[in-house]
């Protein structure tokens, strides 16, 4: 079956521009996560959705970052006034979430490599 799909796979933008990164989770997965991965590092948590609502956005680095999931499926990560330090691979993952989260492995997309010049 289809896995988690992320578009675009690569995005090059100039400093100060606005970007949107899209994630299509696995059908039926209610939980959706965004992570950011810098070179040589592990994924760093950004935000978690259960359904349509952002249950935890504590990982977003500042108010330039925002994410939505209006219909409980597709999610968009939005970055305003991009900075060179935002350059990284942005990973999306989904899973079967429950009200009491328990032991559900994450299914990751291949990520969007964002380069801010």
């Amino acid at each position: 079956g289809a896995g988690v799909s992320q578009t675009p796979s690569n995005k090059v933008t100039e400093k100060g521009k606005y970007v949107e990164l899209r994630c299509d989770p696995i059908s039926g997965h209610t939980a959706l996560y965004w992570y950011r991965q810098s070179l040589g590092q592990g994924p760093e948590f950004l935000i978690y959705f259960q359904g349509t609502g952002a249950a935890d956005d504590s990982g977003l680095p500042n108010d330039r970052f925002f994410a939505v999931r209006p219909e409980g499926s597709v999610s968009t990560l939005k970055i305003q006034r991009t900075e060179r330090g935002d350059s990284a691979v942005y990973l999306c993952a989904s899973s079967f979430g429950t009200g009491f989260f328990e032991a559900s492995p994450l299914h990751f997309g291949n990520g969007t490599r964002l380069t801010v010049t």
Partner: protein
Amino acid sequence: SQQGEEDPQALSIQEGENATMNCSYKTSINNLQWYRQNSGRGLVHLILIRSNEREKHSGRLRVTLDTSKKSSSLLITASRAADTASYFCAALEGAGSYQLTFGKGTKLSVIP
């Protein structure tokens, strides 16, 4: 902050040998998961071990968990060139948690 810390950072072995990677974490956990990442790709879930389990097997993979030492290890037996990848442990903190915290990973190279 990163919950899991893998050791070693890099490991190079000959095909057929066993590879052992270790992970330490800081707080109490609900479960600990291991993931694999090929270059330029997303992470793939390998195995999950709950806090009340001590050992788990899946094919050529063996995971142990020592909650008293806050550590886990991943053993890959009879390694193959195709096992070359980065391996990450990820800790799920206590009850009701949903946030997986990843370590920096171990880069495994299996030489044919």
